[in-house]
Each structure stands twice: as structure tokens, then as C-alpha cells.
């Protein structure tokens, strides 16, 4: 009996205990929750050490039938990927349990909240330790439902449960697609166990005829991976299934923290778990990349136009999830997990801090001065020098280090080049944001920023390589993922060139605008900018489209309900 079994069990037992005795012994409720999750965290760390030095843990608890027809097995599978996720989930959950002690103190649903938190932790831990696709799907479902219940925690507040319902329905769309993928997986490969599935998929090439007469034949693996990816899209808030995330801010702050740090990573985890299957379908990987890239652009753009701190963080998460999915689409599955961990930790801390900031702001008697009364300041020389270093010199240095010191095969791995490229884009975006705030006006701030960016860049690069070798120690496995995801050379060159030109044009436009010359920013472009602003502030109208479809469907249903 492995200790790994107790990792998901402890939060579940805590949830059951809180449900049974929580109302009578309210003071013990947080202690039970914190004790359970912190113990689970310690066990997760021990398990991580165990699987790092030994082989993966695979325990079957319920075989149903020993041979042949048993398709559904209940058990636990802990490899390095699972162990890393378990450490992340239990540590974030422990922090949130501790934070919630005073945050929700006095709330009539105090025990209910902790019970849901414990149950949610159990569900996520069981999801990441599922040994087969069906068990993963069962917990995927439970996660959707538990998220609905916890988002509707303030169920007497109408927007809370309405947004929880929106979340549930969007996740259902993803779940429906996921289930279709499972149906096809079983039909074509006859198994849902991960190891067997990867082996059979690599050995047998099945083709699905989408049109009669074999007019449109596609690989079964492509269809399956695409359907499963739609499920991941819903959970990880990818465009166009992103609409639920920004509206979940009515839930308590600890819930937002858990969601943005833990639950939303489920999609990225799913792609990582099925990485060998995705590596067999380059087309799906390209689609994954495109969806991720669109999500990054839209998420980051919509973040820039928000005026609410929590919604800003929400769209920021959407952008970061797009980045993570994009990394999967480029074959950098291990880097996606690294990103997921880093993002989870910093976003959880941001949300928990946001709660305190909002609380303090509500008690602040004075209103802040309006920025429209501030005199317009032109960017200082410091700003331009910082921008030059960050956007031109730093990427060049990072490229040299990557190629010469870390020996990243840039010529073969499109993925690595695109990463570095997007690092450059992100750094540029940081500069643009700070330019808006006029913050980069002193050498101290500029130096601190440059140093921080260099540190982050090099740490990311170095840690990313280390993490890749940790998750995929077998030689050639990680490289094979990169090769499978390689883009068409012409597409790749056009992408890089086009994005480079866009960024340079942006800088030139800013510079000339600062000098009072609107060469690349004529007056007519202001109207377009305003239209883009309205487009983004209305969340690219996707929400409105869904609401309209929902209303039409509801009207049809009412007609059927009353007339037939």
C-alpha cells in the first residue's frame, strides 16, 4: 500500500468530517482542512522524491474483471508529471485553506465552503492521478460540478449562480466533445489505459472516412485528439470557450485563487498526459498552437482595456493559459507544465493580494485623483533606452546563451525559437504597459526592471531545460515532440517575420508619436483604434453571440413545451 493513495484521500476524509460535524464544531473546521491538505502536501513531496528516484507508482484498486472485458479500472497512477502536479495542488490548496480562515470567518456557509474546498482538492488530485482515460473523465466531470457548486457559494446572490451556470454549460460543451473522443478511442483502439493506448495508436493507423466513398479520410488519432482538445479548451478558457472565466469574479477570492492556480490548469495537464498521442498528430498540434496563439492575443488585449482589478487578472489568466496551450502546440509539453506551475503560484498570490487590496480600498475614505487632470508627460530618454535593451539586446543575448551554453537545437526546433520569440513579445508588452504608466522614468526603476527580466529570462530558459529532462528523462522523447510539432518552414518564417515587423512598427509609431509626428499614427487611425477598443471591451462580442443563441434555443423549447 503506497503512501500516494493517501494524498487524495486525506482531503476527501476532511470534507466528509466537515460535512458531518462542521456545523456543531465550527472552530475545528479550518483546522481539519488545513491539517488534511498540509499532510497531503508532505506526502506529495515524499512521493515526488520516490518517483524521481524509482519508477512510477501504479496501483489498481478495483479490477472488476481480471482479464479481457474490464475497461474501467479504478486506481492510481503517479509518475513524475502527476507527482509534480500533486505538490502544486496540495500546496496551493493549503495556502488557500489558511487564507480562508479569516476571510470567510462569520459567514453562515463557513463549513460548507471548507467541505467544498476539501472535496475539490480531492477531485483535482484524483484527476491528475487517474490511470486511464475513463477515470480521468469521471473526475473531469466531478470537477465541473464541484466548480459549479463552489462558484454558486453565494447562491442568494443572483449573478453568482448565473455565472456559475454559464461556467457549467461552457464546460459541458467541452465535456461532450471529450466524451466523443473517448467513444472513438475505445472504438478504434479498444482500450482506455494510457500505456496501452499510446502503444496501439503508434502501431495501428486507423482512418475515419468523414464523407461516403472515402472522399475525406482523416486519421483517427487526429479526430480523437482534436475532440479531446475541445474538452481541454473549455477547462483552460481558450477562445472561443473562454467566456466563463472573467465572470467568475463574484465568487469568494479564495475560490478565484484556487481556480486560477489549480482548476484552470486541468486542460494543460490533459494535453501533457496524452502527449504521446498528440505527438502522432502534427495537424492537431498546429491547431492547438493556433488556438493558443489567438487566446494569448485576445486575452492580453482584453486585459489591457479592463478597469477592474479582478477582471484584469482574469483576462491575464486567459492569456497565460493561451501561452501554455501554445507551448503544448509547439511540442514543449514539459515547458507548459513549468509555466503552469509558475503561473499558478504567482496568480494565486496576486488574487489573494487583490482581495486585501479591494478590502482596503473599500475602507479608504479618500478618492484617488483623476488621471485626466495630470499633465501629459513625454517618455524620457530612460524609457527609450530601457525599451531598446529589453526588446532588442536582451533577446539576442538569450539566443546566444540558448544556442551556445544550453545547446538548444534552434535550427531543428521551431518550438524553441517561437518561445524565445514570444518572450521578446512579452517583454515588449511589459514595456508598453509601463510606458502607459510613465513608470520607466528613473534609472533605478529601469535598472531593476532590466535585471528582473534578465533573471526571469535566464531562469526560465535554464529551468525549462532542466524540467524537460526531469519529466522526460528518456533520450529523444522530448525532441520527438518538438519535431512532431514543427511548422511548415514557410509558415514559420512568415510568422516570425510578420510579428517582428509588427513590433518594430509599434515602437517606431510610439517614438514618432512622442516627437509629435504622426507618420504611422494618422488621425483616421484613431477611429480604428476606438473601434478596436470597443471590440475588446465588449469581449469580442462572443458572450453576446452565445447569449443570443441561448435565447433562441430557449424560445424554441418554450414553443415545444407549450404547443406540442
Amino acid at each position, binding site marked *: 500500500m503506497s503512501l500516494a493513495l493517501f494524498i487524495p484521500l486525506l482531503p476527501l476524509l476532511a470534507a466528509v468530517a466537515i460535512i458531518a460535524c462542521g456545523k456543531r464544531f465550527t472552530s475545528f473546521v479550518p483546522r481539519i482542512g488545513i491539517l488534511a491538505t498540509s499532510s497531503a502536501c508532505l506526502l506529495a513531496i515524499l512521493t515526488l522524491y520516490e518517483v524521481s528516484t524509482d519508477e512510477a507508482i501504479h496501483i489498481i484498486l478495483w479490477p472488476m474483471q481480471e482479464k*479481457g472485458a474490464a475497461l474501467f479500472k479504478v486506481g492510481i497512477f503517479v509518475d513524475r508529471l502527476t507527482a509534480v502536479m500533486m505538490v502544486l495542488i496540495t500546496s496551493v490548496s493549503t495556502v488557500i485553506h489558511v487564507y480562508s480562515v479569516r476571510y470567510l470567518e462569520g459567514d453562515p456557509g463557513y463549513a460548507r465552503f471548507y467541505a467544498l474546498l476539501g472535496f475539490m482538492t480531492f477531485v483535482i488530485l484524483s484527476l491528475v492521478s487517474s490511470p486511464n482515460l475513463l477515470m480521468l473523465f469521471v473526475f473531469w466531470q466531478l470537477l465541473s*460540478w464541484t466548480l459549479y457548486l463552489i462558484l454558486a457559494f453565494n447562491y442568494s446572490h443572483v449573478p453568482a449562480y448565473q455565472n456559475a451556470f454559464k461556467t457549467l*454549460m461552457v464546460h*459541458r460543451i467541452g465535456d461532450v466533445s471529450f466524451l466523443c473522443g473517448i467513444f472513438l478511442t475505445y472504438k478504434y483502439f479498444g482500450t482506455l489505459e494510457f500505456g496501452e493506448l499510446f502503444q496501439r495508436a503508434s502501431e495501428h493507423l486507423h482512418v475515419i472516412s468523414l464523407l461516403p466513398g472515402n472522399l475525406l479520410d482523416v486519421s483517427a488519432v487526429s479526430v480523437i485528439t482534436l475532440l479531446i482538445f475541445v474538452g481541454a479548451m473549455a477547462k483552460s478558457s481558450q477562445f472561443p470557450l473562454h467566456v466563463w472565466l472573467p465572470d467568475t469574479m463574484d465568487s469568494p477570492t479564495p475560490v478565484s485563487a484556487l481556480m486560477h492556480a489549480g482548476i484552470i490548469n486541468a486542460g494543460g495537464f490533459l494535453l501533457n498526459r496524452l502527449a504521446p498521442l498528440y505527438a502522432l498528430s502534427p495537424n492537431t498540434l498546429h491547431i492547438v498552437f493556433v488556438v493558443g496563439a489567438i487566446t494569448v492575443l485576445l486575452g492580453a488585449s482584453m486585459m489591457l482595456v479592463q478597469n477592474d482589478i479582478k477582471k484584469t487578472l482574469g483576462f491575464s489568466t486567459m492569456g497565460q493559459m493561451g501561452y501554455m496551450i501554445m507551448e503544448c502546440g509547439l511540442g514543449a509539453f514539459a515547458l507548459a507544465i513549468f509555466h503552469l506551475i509558475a503561473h499558478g503560484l504567482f496568480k494565486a498570490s496576486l488574487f489573494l493580494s487583490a482581495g486585501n487590496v479591494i478590502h482596503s480600498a473599500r475602507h479608504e475614505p479618500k478618492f484617488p485623483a483623476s488621471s485626466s487632470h495630470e499633465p501629459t508627460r513625454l517618455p524620457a530618454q530612460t524609457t527609450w533606452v530601457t525599451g531598446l535593451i529589453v526588446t532588442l539586446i536582451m533577446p539576442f543575448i538569450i539566443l546566444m546563451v540558448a544556442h551556445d551554453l544550453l545547446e538548444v537545437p534552434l535550427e531543428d526546433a521551431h518550438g524553441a525559437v517561437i518561445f524565445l520569440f514570444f518572450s521578446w513579445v512579452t517583454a515588449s508588452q511589459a514595456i508598453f504597459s509601463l510606458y502607459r504608466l510613465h513608470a520607466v522614468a528613473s534609472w533605478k526603476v529601469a535598472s531593476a526592471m532590466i535585471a528582473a527580466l534578465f533573471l526571469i529570462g535566464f531562469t526560465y530558459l535554464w529551468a525549462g531545460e532542466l524540467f524537460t529532462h526531469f519529466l522526460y528523462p528518456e533520450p529523444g522523447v522530448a525532441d520527438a515532440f518538438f519535431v512532431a510539432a514543427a511548422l511548415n518552414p514557410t509558415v514559420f518564417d512568415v510568422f516570425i517575420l510578420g510579428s517582428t515587423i509588427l513590433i518594430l512598427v509599434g515602437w517606431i509609431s510610439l517614438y514618432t508619436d512622442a516627437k509629435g509626428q504622426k507618420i504611422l499614427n494618422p488621425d483616421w487611425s484613431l477611429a480604428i483604434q476606438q473601434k478596436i477598443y470597443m471590440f475588446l471591451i465588449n469581449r469580442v462580442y462572443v458572450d453576446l453571440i452565445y447569449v443570443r443563441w441561448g435565447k433562441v434555443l430557449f424560445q424554441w423549447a418554450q414553443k415545444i*413545451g407549450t404547443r406540442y
Partner: protein
Amino acid sequence: MNIDSTSLLAFAIILSAICAILGQGHSKHSTIASVEILFVSGLGLGALLTPVPINRYFLVGVLGYAAYSLFQSHCTGAIKTISLAQIVLAILLTLVSTFTGNELAMFAGLFLAVTLVPLLPFHLPFASLVGSASGALSGVWTTVFLALGLAELSQLQTFLFEGLPAAASLLALGGALYCSFKCLGQSQIRPLLTYATIAQVSMLWGLTTIFSTFSQWGVPFGITIALVMSGLFVTYHCVQQRFGTHAIGTLPGLASPMPRLGTMLIILISIAMVLPIIPILTGLTTMPAADHQTVSLIVISLIILSVWMLGSWYFAHLLHQTAFGKARPDIPYSDLKTAEICSLALLIVAASYSGLFY
């Protein structure tokens, strides 16, 4: 059909009757309602447990009383006429088949099955009877009808699997979509729950065309549907008994002043929303990995997905309009009593056992 399935079906009827009586509460009609519940359950148990041909007479008794109840109900128009005609036809076929050969018995069995386990377009008697039954009797009728229908289906499983797959699966798909949309557009609780039951049951019909081992998975799954929906009928009967309303949305926010009711509702609706997943688990575990026609798999996939997707919508909508929201300050709320909680808890436990562990 083996003894275990019969015991499960009989147990479901007994449990449903006990829970309906416990959930009746105290009113001037509760004695009459309890007698009615016992009468219907007794007939149902007789139809299940007595040997041939006595069980056919009990079955005729169930159908006869169903016809009588429907005749006395507030239903009007063509639906009532068609429903009564179908029940009378079922009675005649049952009586005639008792005394004649196997061919007519098989046809009678099929007709009984589509009437008792409602399959579009033979769903009208079930919908009219359950939708118009008073008090907690709706839940009992649901369980009795489904239990007797499942017993008939078990005897027909070979015929269904080999002889009638395409027609049954297409009708099931039609029923799933139609009933799910009808539930979405409902403004009254009882019809919503009735058509939700028919939508869930259509999955059962769809799956009979793929999984031949019906008695191993179909009976427990059917009983799970019956018990969960009975639980919802009993729960909303408690609300209607206290506040006199069946309309969705007129009394929101019940979970705040009535936390026990809120908890029971959330649990029952959670199980109802997960129901479509259960046959996937149980069917896959008991079914040998046989090769099936793509069309059958596509149809059953569409059934499960539509029931699941739309079921999530209307069940969540029901939860929002009843349990969630702001409670009205002018209403004297009173939470569930011990007897009512026990009845619902028993149904939940039995449904979980039947769906997951049996």
C-alpha cells in the same frame, strides 16, 4: 430474468412506496393518498412476484387503475383519449397473450414495454398519468411503471438486440431530443420532471440496441432513474404541500431558509445530471468488447450527449429557480421534517447503490 433483478425491482417499488408515504406529510388527503400508494405498489409487487399467469392479472390491475386515475384526472383533449386508448389496448393484448401462443405474447410484451418504459410516440400514457397524479403518487407511478417495464424488457432482450435495433434507437433519439426540449420550455415542475424521466429513459432504449446483457446493466440503471426521479417528485411535493405552488420561479431561494431541502435538492439534481454517465460506466464494464455498427454507436452517442447536455441545462435551471436566489421575506418557511429527510435519504442511498455499486 434472474432472481436478483426481480428482487431489485421489487425492492425499488417497496422503497418508493415507503418514501412516498413518509414524504406525504400531514394533510386532509394524506390518508387517501397513502392508501392509493399502497394499492398501486401492491398491484405492482403482485405483477412482479407472482407466478405466471397470475402476474398478468396483476399487471392488468395496474393498467386498469392507471386508466381509472387518468380518467378521473384533470387532463383533457386528444392526449387523454389517446392515452386511455393505448392503456386499454395494452390491457387487451396482455389478456389475450396470456391464453395464446408465443408470437402474440412477444408482441404484447413489446407493446407493454414501450408503454411502461415510455418510448416516443408511446409515451403519452406515462406522461399524462405521472404528470397529473396527486401528491407523492407521481413518484410511485414512475417506479411501478419503470419496474414492470424493465421486467418486460428483460424478457425481450434477445429479440430487441437482434430484431429491432434501428427503429428503437431512432425513436429513442427522437424521444430524447423532444422530451429534453420540452423540459427546457416548461414552467411547471411536475411536467418538467415527467418529461425529464422520459428523456433519461430514452437512453435505456438506445443502449438496449448495443449492449445485449440488459439484465446486468439495464435493470439497475432503470431503477436508478426511477428512484432519483421519485426523490425529486417527493421533494417538490414537500414544497407544494407547504406553499401550494407548482410553478417554476414563483418561489426561489428555498435553500437559504430551508437548508435541509436545499441540500437534498442539490444532491438529487447532481445525481440526475450525472445519470447519463452511469450507463457508460456500467455498460462498458459488463459488455464484452464486441464490434458494433457505427450507426448504432453514433445514434446512442447523440442520445447520451443530448440528454446530458440539455439535462444539465434544465436541471440547473430548475435548481436556480427553486433552491437558489433570494428568499421572499413574506413567506413563513419551514424546513423538511425528520420523516421527509429519511425518505429522501433512503432514495438517494438506494439510487447510488443501484447505479454505482450493484
